[in-house]
């Protein structure tokens, strides 16, 4: 069953087309990545999914039924920009947001305590939100989205601004949710983060889907045309255009996309001729690479 289904959805603000003819479906129990650069239409899409705005045309189905507000009680939402009442105490805030999602006061209180203990912020329950660090606020926001045990979790840039320890903590929680059979939608422009988590993705650019499907399929479609090279010495080989289609130099290593028809062994010889090679590995292209390639094509 599909948790959410968008059919030819379009949304415009004045003359600006935010989302244009977007269709996608998310299988229940999977992790889905909605990816794209800033301003691509990710947040507009999510807002329509949770009924904050309505699409101009097209159809949205949640849990197999046309959109109805009642469904919202089974959805957890973490907005892109964190939103909490600054002057309100953490506990009161969580209980309030839980109640808005249909929980009883007592239930919301119990669950708020449990979650805060799990995420190591139980001692802050009686603090005001404005007294917390940014990372802690993020955890609270995270809990607020999950408190009512939603079937479908929507996270807009969930790891933004988190240190690696906390990001890891939240990632574990999400994986745990996945094991429980929840559906998770990620929206982010940091593609590397989501790559490790997502089952399926949709890349959107300028309001239009440019690439969709299971992550493994998407990647295999683009083949192992990339080479990661760690080397010491001369980098003249990067200028051999009959071998190197494009490259990203990351400092410690360089990722090369082979020119069409080029042989990776030839490249290895070219590099080894002038430098010392520490590592030479054929890899799948990263989502970022794929995105650049696809967007480059559609723009052209």
């Amino acid at each position, binding site marked *: 069953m599909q948790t959410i289904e968008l059919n030819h959805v379009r949304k415009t603000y004045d003359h600006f087309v935010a989302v244009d003819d977007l269709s996608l479906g998310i299988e229940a129990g999977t992790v889905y990545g909605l990816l794209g650069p800033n301003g691509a239409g990710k947040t507009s899409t999510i807002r329509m999914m949770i009924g904050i705005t309505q699409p101009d045309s097209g159809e949205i189905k949640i849990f197999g039924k046309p959109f109805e507000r009642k469904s919202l009680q089974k959805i957890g939402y973490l907005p892109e920009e964190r*939103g909490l009442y600054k002057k309100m105490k953490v506990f009161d805030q969580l209980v309030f947001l839980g109640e*808005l999602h249909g929980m009883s006061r007592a239930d919301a209180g119990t669950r708020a305590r449990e979650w805060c203990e799990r995420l190591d912020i139980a001692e802050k329950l009686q603090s005001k939100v404005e007294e917390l660090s940014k990372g802690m606020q993020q955890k609270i926001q995270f809990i607020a989205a999950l408190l009512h045990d939603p079937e479908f979790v929507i996270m807009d840039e969930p790891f933004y601004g988190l240190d690696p320890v906390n990001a890891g903590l939240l990632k574990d929680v999400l994986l745990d949710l996945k094991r429980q059979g929840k559906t998770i939608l990620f929206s982010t422009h940091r593609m590397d983060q989501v790559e490790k988590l997502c089952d399926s993705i949709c890349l959107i650019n300028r309001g239009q889907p440019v690439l969709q499907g299971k992550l493994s399929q998407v990647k295999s479609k683009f083949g192992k045309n990339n080479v990661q090279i760690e080397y010491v010495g001369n980098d003249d080989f990067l200028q051999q255009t009959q071998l190197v289609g494009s490259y990203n130099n990351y400092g410690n290593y360089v990722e090369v996309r082979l020119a069409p028809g080029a042989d990776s062994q030839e490249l290895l010889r070219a590099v080894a001729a002038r430098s010392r090679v520490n590592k030479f590995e054929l890899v799948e292209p990263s989502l970022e690479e794929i995105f650049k390639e696809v967007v480059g094509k559609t723009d052209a």
Partner: protein
Amino acid sequence: MRNMLLIARREYLERIRTKAFLIMTILIPAIMGGSLVLPALFIKKSQDKLKHLVVVASDQRTGNYMAEQINQQREVEGREKQQAEKPQARPSGGLPGAGRWTIDVDTNTSESNRAALSDKVKLKLLDGVIWATAENLSARKVPFITRDVSSFEENMQVQRSITRALQRDALEARGFSDAEIENLQKSIDLNPESPSGVQVKSIESTIFTSIFPLMVLYMSVLLYGINVMNAVLEEKSSRVMEVVLSSVEPKYLMAGKLLGVGAVGLTQIFIWAAIGASVSGSAIMGSGVDLKKIVGGRELAFFVVFYLLGYLLYSAMYAAVGAMCNSQQEAQQLSQLVTMPLVIPLFLIGYIIQYPGAPLSVAASLFPLTSPLMMYARIASVQPPGWKEIALSIALLAVTIYGVVLLCAKIYRVGILMYGKKPTLPEIVKWIKYA
């Protein structure tokens, strides 16, 4: 519906618990009470002060006579005032809380003496000099040299005393007895009545029953209206809006907010009323201000009704302003437009209290933007309007509120998700159509 109440409860509890609420609740009555009671106390104190005057007259007899009359006049007026304040108390006789003024008589009418006495007044050796020469008396223009040239009450008292002394002198010369003279000089009391025979309240008490509560009404509507605006702005700028909107429809969010904040105002008003009721009749009432008159049951009931109506009307507009703007600065400019009609009644208070039945007063008490304050002012005035007019005013207001709330809810719904530049008027019109 449940969510609307949850929103309202949150708004209510979060506000009630703040220090700001506590401070406002205590401070406002303190300031209001102070502004009423303190001047009264000061005036009373200055009236109780024993003064030292000099009467300069052309002959000793006239001088003595006037000096005697000033003290007698004070005694008579003191007694009258005491009786007006506590009609049940038996006149205790004598001057209230004070003794006789020291009044010297001087027959030296030379300019040099006048200069010397003026200097004494300047140096605070004397409180005043009455230059009542025969020439001045016959011209009926008497200079009174005093440091408190603007002390209305005292100057009137001196003026009345001298006039009476002159009348008395003339009447005595024609052989009238003391009793006859007193009878002749007694001023009459005017008791205005409406044509329907209803006893009209005194204008003094009206000033307290209208201006004082009207200021509170104005402040409550303004304060809590702006409060709603700031709450909307805060939710918008902190982006809590999106989280809340993912489970609550905008109209319920706005309605809950209006209810919650409005209830805070109502709580405050009831606390104030309770404070007023408990202190009336207590020690500070020695100043002559009767708070019972201010917090009468009928006035309180109408106060609450017009607070709620006025608050609903204005807070809906303030909510729309908050939704349109992105920052306090932006909102401040725009909210002035909303505040303006609320301020108009303040300029009209004086007129309405004096002429509650005049066409302008009636119009202002029916026109919905001004009626919450103006109708209340008329109800509390010397000549309250009939039930029909009150009902019409409330009905007009209710219809307007319905329309304004619908309109503002539309602006609110679109505005809360709009960030960036402030919308232009055509854009807002588009929002309203769109929603």
